[in-house]
């Protein structure tokens, strides 16, 4: 299932190396291919969505389903905005700090709710999301429902200024890769194996000496910290943040990113799911007004026909092909 992950540890054959190098070049040179700032914006939002989707997937890898991921995205965004605007910190300090603050809050909340996994947990994450959105909206000093406006751009490093979208793109790309590297390291380690066993069979995992609560809490914290990290980025990229961006509905979208790609693929799945949900509506913009109808329809079709997500397609095709081949074989062997 995590075959893609194992590529790193296998001796890469020339074909795959070439593929990765070409992909890497395309990704790095992407800004040159983009014709408009709007397209760059899309790609940047895509990167953010990928990280958010991956944070959902990390929790899912322990068997926990959350519809509250957007809440931690919000915490990171608001924390970062406040740190920079009220405490005059540099963005580069606020970025990691926001992530850490999100982690601390995740630790506090997680310690309470991770104890009761299952449906209760799902409901509790939803409530946390709703409470946070409501609280952010009610608190006037946080800008109320209008949110915080005019959030400063990241401080320039040397001659690199954050004016055009290009530099933002490279920054979010860096953050995305950072997240991927950290997540990958975790998944391929003892911790990742423990998570997987908790998801597949919690009872059995316990008899192997695995502390369910601790590992679930760890996943919760790491996932939330990554959301907080891109939250900080988002605040200083977009310039304004308002509570409604971080609603339960966004969290559900994040869940859909994860489901569409394939929940068995913790890194590739979220990437593809986010890709589909972020870019497909853009292609459908031709029928501008009916776009959500089309997106909704495509979503439904994908869920029905590919319940394992897009990445289950090879398997599905494989089994279809195998069935087809065996029928042919039967016909041939009768001669």
């Amino acid at each position, binding site marked *: 299932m995590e075959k893609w992950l194992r590529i790193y540890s296998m001796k890469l054959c020339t074909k795959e190396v070439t593929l990765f190098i070409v992909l890497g070049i395309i990704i790095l040179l992407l800004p040159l291919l983009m014709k408009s700032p709007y397209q760059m914006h899309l790609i940047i939002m895509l990167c953010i969505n990928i990280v958010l989707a991956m944070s959902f997937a990390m929790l899912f890898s322990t068997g926990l389903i959350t519809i509250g991921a957007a809440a931690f995205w919000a915490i990171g965004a608001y924390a970062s905005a406040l740190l920079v605007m009220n405490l005059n910190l540099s963005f580069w300090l606020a970025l990691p700090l926001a992530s850490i603050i999100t982690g601390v809050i995740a630790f506090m909340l997680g310690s309470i709710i991770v104890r009761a996994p299952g449906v209760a947990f799902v409901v509790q994450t939803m409530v946390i999301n709703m409470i946070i959105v409501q609280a952010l909206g009610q608190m006037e000093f946080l800008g109320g429902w209008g949110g915080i406006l005019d959030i400063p751009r990241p401080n320039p490093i040397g001659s690199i200024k954050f004016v055009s979208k290009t530099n933002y793109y490279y920054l979010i790309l860096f953050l995305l890769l950072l997240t991927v590297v950290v997540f*990958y390291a975790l998944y391929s380690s003892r911790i990742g194996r423990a998570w997987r066993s908790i998801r597949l069979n919690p009872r059995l995992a316990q008899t192997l000496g695995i502390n369910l609560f601790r590992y679930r809490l760890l996943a919760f914290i790491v996932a939330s910290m990554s959301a907080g990290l891109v939250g900080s980025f988002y605040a200083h990229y977009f310039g304004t943040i308002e509570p409604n961006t971080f609603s339960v509905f966004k969290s559900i979208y994040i869940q859909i990113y994860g489901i569409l790609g394939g929940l068995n693929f913790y890194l590739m799945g979220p990437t593809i799911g986010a890709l589909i949900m972020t870019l497909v509506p853009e292609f459908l913009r031709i029928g501008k007004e009916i776009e959500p109808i089309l997106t909704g329809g495509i979503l439904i079709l994908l869920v029905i026909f590919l319940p394992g997500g897009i990445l289950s397609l090879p398997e599905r095709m494989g089994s279809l092909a195998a069935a087809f081949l065996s029928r042919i074989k039967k016909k041939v062997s009768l001669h």
Partner: protein
Amino acid sequence: MAFLEVRNLTKHFGGLVAVSALNLDIFDSEILGIIGPNGAGKSTFFNIVNGFYPPTKGKVIFRGRDIIGLKAHQIAQLGIGRSFQASTLFMNLTVFDNVFTGFYMSYKEAVWMSFLHAPYALREERGAKRRVMEILEFMGLAELKDQIAYNLPHGHQRILGICIALATQPKLLLLDEPLTGMHLEETSTMLNLIKKIQNSGMTIVLVEHNMEAVMRLCDRIIVLNHGKKIAEGLPKEIRDNKDVIEAYLGTEEEFEPIAS
């Protein structure tokens, strides 16, 4: 001091008394069988020893240490391993991966070491993999190592469950009805395997319904009925014990013959 001491163990589930004032000892390197009609409290007993739920009263002392109140994973870390009644496995993983996961506790490597493929981490991984193969060969599943667990026939799944338990390097192994659902040949294989495990130095407690198998395999037997111990002793003493026979009269217990 006995390996495992159970003192006055009682468990109520609401109005139902599952286990009542149970006292028993388990000694080093023996195979103890626990039998009794359905509902006698055998699996409840295991679940308490395992740490899945606490008793209403009583103590369980493992190698001198009271383990009541410890959580299931802590008890596993102390060295009590368990196989389950139903096929409790990591169904989507291969046989190899199932057992490999069982070595969780013996893994020391830090996350970064593994990621960077530090030599120490690689060595540890190779070592663990070797030990997985040792267990699989010991239990006869080596050829099936790449099979996905849910594809295995029932008998092999039960054996795999025991392999996983062995991977935790327990000092005490609890086997919960290992023979259920097995036909003659599989039963025979399983009994031989359990004997092999004992010979390698393990202490085993077995809960079973298959009377003949228990008689043949166990060093000592304890009989439970309605949560209470009604007999204890060597197999031949239990066989003729009238309390035991009475407890089984009128139930659907069968004395299943096994291949000799």
